[in-house]
């Protein structure tokens, strides 16, 4: 059964800002669906329409076969939503915010308290539960928002940048939580920039650019499109002032770490350069891998930028 069907969706602001430009896709129940794309690609506008926070200019969104209408209480019952903006319940304690949200989802007080305690423990906020939300750090604030989206176990979760502002430990915890929800059959729609981490949980991905979907499929299918390429990751030793030109043409992914996506036919040439005694003396670490989802994302993003260029 389809959780969401999006048909010919257009959303225009003013006369000419096309936030969503003819979107057509569907999401299966129980699927973890990722929406990737650069800033301004129209991802948040899309999910805001999916939760009824704004209405399409034209086209239709269906949830479990029924069209979504403004103020649709069915959507509110079924969907747990984490907005991109921070949760504004500054004057409530973290636990109170989660319990109150649970009660507003129809849980009785004891049930809401029990679920809130379990969620705060799972998300690693139990020792901060009595702090006012307004006094929490940005990451902790985000985690409280995450707990409010999850309480009441809604069958559909729409999470807009769930790991923003989180440290690596908290990020791992969030992805683990989402994997558990996935195994329970929850439909999860993720909007994220964190492509590498999202790859752990998503079943299918849509890559958006300038309001359109430029690619959609499983990570495997999308990566298959780059099958003629390999990713070369090179880390330089301490003290090496700068990468050689051919390496510098790649993408810098760390202080002394570069990633190059090459055609397989150019791999031999790359090895010859790397085998040069002078070059190899500068190299601390070398990895060859198949393209990741991030490479796919960057490849599409690069194409869009080239199209934009005058």
């Amino acid at each position, binding site marked *: 059964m389809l959780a969401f069907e999006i048909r010919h969706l257009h959303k225009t602001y003013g006369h000419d800002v096309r936030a969503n430009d003819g979107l057509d896709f569907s999401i299966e*129940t129980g699927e973890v669906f990722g929406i990737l794309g650069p800033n301004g690609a129209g991802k948040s506008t899309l999910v805001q329409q999916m939760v009824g926070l704004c209405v399409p200019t034209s086209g239709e969104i269906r949830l479990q076969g029924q069209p979504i209408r403004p*103020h649709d209480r069915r959507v509110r019952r079924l969907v747990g939503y984490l*907005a991109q*903006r921070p949760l504004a319940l500054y004057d409530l304690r973290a636990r109170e915010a989660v319990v109150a949200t649970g009660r507003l*989802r*129809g849980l009785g007080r004891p049930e809401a308290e029990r679920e809130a305690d379990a969620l705060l423990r799972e998300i690693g906020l139990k020792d901060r539960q009595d702090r006012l939300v307004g006094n929490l750090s940005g990451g902790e604030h985000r985690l409280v928002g995450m707990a409010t989206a999850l309480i*009441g176990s809604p*069958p559909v979760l729409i999470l807009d940048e769930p790991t923003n502002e989180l440290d690596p430990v908290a990020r791992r915890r969030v992805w683990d939580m989402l994997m558990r929800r996935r195994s329970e059959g929850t*439909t999860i729609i993720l909007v994220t920039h964190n492509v590498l981490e999202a790859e752990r949980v998503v079943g299918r991905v849509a890559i958006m650019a300038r309001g359109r979907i430029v690619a959609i499929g499983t990570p495997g299918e999308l990566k298959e499109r780059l099958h003629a390429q390999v990713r070369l990751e090179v880390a330089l030793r301490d003290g090496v002032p700068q990468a050689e030109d051919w390496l510098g043409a790649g993408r810098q992914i760390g202080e002394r770490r570069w990633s190059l996506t090459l055609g397989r036919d150019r791999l031999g040439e790359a090895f010859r350069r790397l085998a040069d005694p002078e070059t190899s003396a500068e190299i601390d670490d070398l990895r060859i891998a198949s393209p990741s989802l991030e490479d796919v994302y960057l490849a599409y993003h690069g194409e869009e930028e080239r199209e934009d260029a005058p």
Partner: protein
Amino acid sequence: MRLEGTLRAPGTLSAFWVLLGMQLARARRSWRQYIIVSSAMPSGIAILLRAMTSHPGEALALQIISGNVVLSVAITAIAMLAQQVAWMRQNRTFDYYHTLPVPNFAVILAILVAYLLFALPGIAVVLTVGALFYGVHLVISPGILPAILGTGVALSGIGALLGIASRDGELAGLTGNLVMMAVLFLGIIPSGRLPLPLVALSDILPSTYGVRLLLHLLTGQASPYVWLVDGLMLLFFSVVLFFAVERLSYRVG
């Protein structure tokens, strides 16, 4: 696989209590501000006017006290609430409520009632100061509560509408203060002493009916006729403004 949403939604009343509790939590940080702001200015004005008039008659004294009680409500319900609502819209706080299965009107009512409750300490201070400085006997009857409730909801409706219409908190604060000044002047000055255009303006402000009803209640002379006219006008303003706020605050783009 979870196919159907079997989730519950809270009953309207229980949702309202939870929402009211969430709104009242604001007092944790700001209770001093609410008490000081809602009591200092109206009490100060009442004391100032007493100092400037050597022998105010009982009628004028009661007009001043009633006017300042309504001003106390107006400070939180108009000036402070307008800023709060503008801030909530700017920060998209309504989105949080809009994605939960609670009736929109329960959210709005909780916000309005919370701000009305924040005005209560100020009202008590103004009544006490008024009775002491003007030496008048005030009849404190149970009817005062619905009168203040009606005035408060109607004025909160104005405050919330100003907040919705303003592009930011600063503009909301400015317009809120202007309307509050209108409430102050038109509430304290008896309508017989006002020029005609201002009488017409006072007729469209719910505070006018609130002051009049309070005036009658504080003297123990609130007849059924007074309730019928002023009480019904307050009810009318409350209902109209409440639904206007409910509709506009949940506008979707």
